[in-house]
């Protein structure tokens, strides 16, 4: 039988690996896809680029807050 701290640590590591997997997919497929478009916007329309940059970081902040909250709730419910 596993003791409680070992079980909690294992749950935590699994959730961290799930998050890392999601991040890798997101960075290489979503963010990398935006690279050229954002660069073109930066070169030709600085004001549009500025608003797009702010919207992107706020949007990502809100979405990742939800994802990480769900993951941490899962860790707690598994370790209890």
């Amino acid at each position, binding site marked *: 039988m596993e003791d409680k701290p070992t079980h909690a640590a294992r749950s935590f590591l699994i959730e*961290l690996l799930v*998050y890392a997997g999601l*991040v890798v997919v*997101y*960075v*290489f497929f979503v*963010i*990398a896809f*935006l*690279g*050229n478009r*954002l*660069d073109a916007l*930066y070169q030709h329309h*600085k*004001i549009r*680029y*500025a*608003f*797009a*940059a*702010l919207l*992107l*970081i*706020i949007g*990502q*902040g*809100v979405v*990742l*807050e939800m*994802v*990480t*909250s769900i*993951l*941490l709730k899962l860790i707690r419910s598994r370790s209890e």
Partner: protein
Amino acid sequence: MDFLVSQTHISPFYLVIIGFIIGILGGFFGVGGSFLAGPALFAVGVPMNFVVGTDLAHIVGKSIVAAKKHRALGNVDLKLGFIMVIGTIAGVEVGAQGIEWLKHFGQANVDQVVGIIFVVVLISISAFVGWESWQTIKMQRDREREAEMSGVGARELGAKEDESAFDHIARKIHGIKLRPMMKLRVSGIERVSLWAILLVAFVGGVFSGFLGGGAGYIRMPAMVYLLGVPTHVAVGTDLFEIVISASYGTLTHAIKGNVDIMIALVMHTGAAIGAQIGASSTEYFRGPKIRLAFVPLPLIGAAIVIYSLLSGKHLK
């Protein structure tokens, strides 16, 4: 991975890991973490003007999460936050104009001047926080000894839940009668001059615009030590204020061409989970000992900048 806007080549894993570490520290100590994020970006070859703007953008995303949590806990003084936004935005603009002025003398000058000022600020903060927390711990020990000898509880001898060896300075500032005077109910402050709040916010804003980040490492301690705001309210209000002022800073720096949003987005993926872990850990550690544990962090940031400035090399 190539970051076209800043014309740099950085491993995304490096950025995610840096974001994760900064997220944990930010969540635990209630600061934006620019004292580490700035040097970490500079060390891999990001030009200093991009370090400043990009770090601000990354902080917007991270502070939204933390401010939302603090608001739910009742740790945000909205009145104080909105007043501080005015002073901070004015300061950020002055700081950003300072960067623009330095650009006229060449990129090398921007890197050197900002780098040197950054080092001085980081070492000063580290020394001050170390000294203050040590004084507070000593004061608490003396009071406990006194309480033991007299058989009275430490609370009856004036001990507070969240105290600092600098409470007397905040009381002196509350005594300055420069109208208009404000009452801050959530922070428990009966009377404080509007100008004192604006000045604290303005100075923090100048550092934010000039050195990057939200400058929480200056404004948050200033709110506690100078304005007398309780630490948990200072942290929550500062984060709320950072969301607005850092958003403005991101816009103004992006228009001036100082933001590589791709770097900020990649860093933020690590910071989001790190901030959650750091914030959850605070329930196990409290008081001036947290402030004492904070002392080595700005020194690590200072060491990275000194290395890069002296050697002219970047840690790629």
